[in-house]
C-alpha cells in the first residue's frame, strides 16, 4: 500500500510513504560515510576497468594494463603443478620399480599418477580399473599372459604386444583348423574346457582330446596347460578365459585363434610415465613379487 509521505509524530521524521498493515517505514537518512564508501567502490571499479580485461567490443575486448588472461593463469597453474611434481618424478626415474614398493609415499604418488595415465591411455581397451573385457585381458586378476612382475609389466607396457616395435612381445598360435580335423579340434576343445578340474578329469571328458593336446599344444601351453609367460601362451587350466570359456569359444580359438595387439607405449609415455603406469597396474591386486620359475 502506498500512502503519502508524512511526518511521524514520535520521531519527527518523514515516512517513506509505504504502509503494511498499519506499519509505516521511516525514511531515515543514510550516514554520509556510507555514501563515501559507495564512491570508493566506484573508484575501485574504474581502476579495475583499466587494469583487467573488461570492456567487450565487436571482435574482442580490452586487455587491461596487467595483461591478465585466464589462459595465462591456467598456464601458470600448470607450470606450478609441474614444478611441484618435479622432485617426485626425478625420484621415480632414479628408483628401480621393485624398490618403489617399499617406499609408501613415492609409491602412492606413482600409483596416483599411474591411474591418470591408465585412465587416459589404457582404459579404452582394458577398461577402468583394469577390469578388462572380451579379448582384452583383465589386469586386476592374478593371471598374467606376459608376466606380472615389475620388470615384465614395464617391458609389456613400453614395447607393447605384436606390433612394429622390435622388442615387442610377439608370438603366434597357428590356426589348427588347417592342421587338425574338425573332430580333433572339437575333442581338444572339450579337453581344454575341463582342464581346470585337473588332467585326469579332462582326459575322462575326452581321451581323444588328451591325445590331440599332447601332440599339438603342450609345446607352448605346457603338459598340464600351465601356459608359458615368456611366449605369452595363456594358462589353460584356470577359470580365466580371454576369449570366452564355453565350448564354442574355445573351439573357435583353436580353429582360428584371435591375437591381441597392444601398441608400444614407451615413446608416448616416456620412462617415468611407463613406470607409473606399471606401478598402478602392479597394485591393482595381481602384481607378482618374483619372476615365475616355469
Amino acid at each position, binding site marked *: 500500500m502506498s500512502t503519502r509521505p508524512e511526518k511521524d509524530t514520535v520521531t*519527527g521524521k518523514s515516512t517513506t510513504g509505504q504502509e503494511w498493515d498499519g506499519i509505516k517505514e521511516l525514511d531515515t537518512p543514510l*550516514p*554520509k*560515510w556510507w555514501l563515501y564508501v559507495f564512491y570508493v567502490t566506484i573508484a575501485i571499479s574504474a581502476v579495475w576497468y583499466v587494469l583487467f580485461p573488461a570492456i567487450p567490443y565487436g571482435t574482442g575486448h580490452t586487455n587491461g594494463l596487467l595483461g591478465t588472461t585466464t589462459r595465462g593463469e591456467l598456464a601458470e597453474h600448470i607450470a606450478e603443478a609441474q614444478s611441484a611434481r618435479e622432485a617426485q618424478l626425478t625420484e621415480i626415474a632414479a628408483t628401480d620399480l621393485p624398490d618403489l614398493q617399499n617406499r609408501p609415499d613415492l609409491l602412492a604418488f606413482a600409483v596416483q599418477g599411474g591411474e591418470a595415465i591408465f585412465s587416459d591411455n589404457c582404459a579404452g581397451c582394458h*577398461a577402468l580399473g583394469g577390469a578388462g573385457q572380451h579379448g582384452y585381458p583383465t589386469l586386476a*586378476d592374478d*593371471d598374467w599372459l606376459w608376466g606380472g612382475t615389475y620388470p615384465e609389466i614395464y617391458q609389456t607396457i613400453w614395447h607393447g604386444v605384436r606390433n612394429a616395435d622390435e622388442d615387442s612381445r610377439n608370438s603366434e598360435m597357428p590356426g589348427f583348423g588347417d592342421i587338425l580335423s574338425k573332430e580333433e579340434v572339437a575333442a581338444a576343445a572339450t579337453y581344454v574346457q575341463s582342464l581346470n578340474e585337473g588332467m585326469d578329469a579332462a582326459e575322462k571328458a575326452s581321451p581323444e582330446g588328451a591325445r590331440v593336446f599332447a601332440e599339438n599344444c603342450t609345446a607352448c601351453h605346457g603338459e598340464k596347460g600351465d601356459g608359458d609367460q615368456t611366449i605369452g601362451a595363456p594358462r589353460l587350466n584356470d577359470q580365466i578365459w580371454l576369449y570366452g570359456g564355453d565350448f564354442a569359444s574355445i573351439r573357435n580359438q583353436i580353429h582360428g585363434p584371435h591375437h591381441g595387439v597392444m601398441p608400444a607405449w614407451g615413446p608416448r609415455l616416456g620412462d617415468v610415465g611407463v613406470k607409473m603406469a606399471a606401478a598402478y597396474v602392479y597394485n591393482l591386486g595381481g602384481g607378482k613379487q618374483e619372476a615365475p620359475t616355469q
Partner: protein
Amino acid sequence: MATTATIARAEADADAAPVRSRIEQKSDPLYVGRVKVHPKAVDGKWRRFKTAVLVLCLAVYYAVPWIRWDRGPGVPDQAVLADFSGQRFYFFWLEIWPQEIYYITGLLILAALGLFLATSLFGRVWCGFTCPQTVWTDLFMFVERRIEGDRGARIRLDKQPWNRDKIQKRALKHSVWLVIALLTGGAWIMYFTDAPTLARTFFTGEAGPVVYFFVGLFTLTTYLLAGHAREQVCTYMCPWPRIQASLLDEESRIVTYQTWRGEPRKPLKRNEDWDQRGDCIDCKACVAVCPTGIDIRDGLQMECIGCSLCIDACNEVMDRIHRPRELITVDSERSQRARAVGLSAPPRYVRPRTIVYVVAIALLGALMLGALALRSNQGVTVQNDRNPLFVRLSNGDIRNGYTLKILNKLNEPRRFDVTTEGIEGARLFAQGGAPADRLTLEAAPNGVTAAKVYVVAPPDPERPATADLTFRLTDEASGEEGGHGTVFRSPAS
C-alpha cells in the same frame, strides 16, 4: 501484584502523561553527516561494574593465547589454538577435527540462545558491557579522556584551530590508539598461531606475509571501529540492535527513564515545590554521558546499548538536589505502567519465552556434553572399488577391493586387527600379502590412514550379486572396537 489488565484500567483512570512535542525537521535530507558524540566521564555503581567487566574481558582476551597445555611431542602446546594449517582446533583438553565442526556450531548456538535469554531478561546487556565494540570503544574513550580531557575540553579542542597544543594532543592520542590497535590485532592472530613464536618473529620480520597482513587488517579495523566509527557501528552496521528489539517484551528489565516521576521536567528554581513538578531538572547529564549520544528520556530506542551510564549520571544529580535516586533505573515496561498509577509489579523472570530459552540451552548443553563424553578416538570408513566391481581369479574365487580410511585421533601410531563378517569363507589381504582370516593394519598418529584391502571368497551360487559385508576393527592395544558396513559383489549367476 498488578496484572497487565489492572494496570490498563488504572491507566485509563489516571491522566496520561503529557506527550512531549518534538522539534520537527523542515525537510529530511538524503544523507546526514556525523554528529560527533563527546561522552562525559561519570562515576557510579554501573560505571564501576562496566570497568570491571572491561578489565576482565581484556585480561581474558590478551592472556588466553599465552596459556600452555602439554599435549606431547609434535603437536602445539597452546591451550587455545585454531590451527588452520594443521586442521585442528585446540581447546585445553579438547581437540576438534574439521569433521567435528558441529561442536563449534553447537557452541555458537548455545551462545546465541544465551544472548536471547539475557536480552529477554535484562535487555541489551551484551551490547552495553561485553560486546568487543563496546569494550574497545570504552578503552579508546578512556585514552582520549586522559589525553584530551573530559567532554568540555574535548569539544573546545575540536573547535580550536590547529596549534601546537592541539597537534601534540591529537598526535599522542592517535599514537596510543594505534599501539592498542596493534596489540589487539596481534593478540587476535595469536589465537591462530603459536603466541610466543609470533611475539618473537613479528618484530624480527620473520613472521610471514599472511601474519603481517592480518595483524595489519585487524589493527586498522580496531583503530577505525573503536577510535572513529564507535556508535556508528551499533547504529548502522550491526544487525543485533534490530534483532534484539524483537527479543524484548514488556517484562524485560531495561534502562528506563521513569516518566511518571520525572515529568513535567523543568530547570530547578530555588525553593521550588516538588509537588508541582517532576524530579527531572532537565540538566541533560544523562545525555552528556551517553556513548551513543541519545536522550534516554525519549524512551527505548534502537541506539540505546543499555550501558546504564545515564543511571549513574542521574543518580549523582539526584544526590545533589536531595531527591531519591534511580529516576533513571533498570525496570520493565509493565512495572513502569504500574508505578505510574501507584501500583507495583514485581519482576517476572519466569515467562514462557525465558522457559523456552532455558530449556533449549539445557537440552543443547546436555546434547553437547553427551556427544563430547561419547566421542571416539577412532573411526573407519570403507569404500568399495567400483572399477572393477569384482575380479574372478584363476581358481574361480571372487575378489573385491576396498579402501579403508582409518581415523586415529591419538598422538601415537596404533595397530588395528581387521576382520570381516557376513561372507562365508571370506579371507582378506593387503597388496603383497597372502589371504588370511585377519589382517593387521597400522594407523599413523593424529591423522587418517588409507589402506587398500582385498577380500577373496569362493564362488557361491546362493550368494546374492550384492551381499552385505562388515569390516570390524579392533585396537590391538586398547581393545576399542569399530566397524563399517559395505557390500561384496559377485557375478550375477
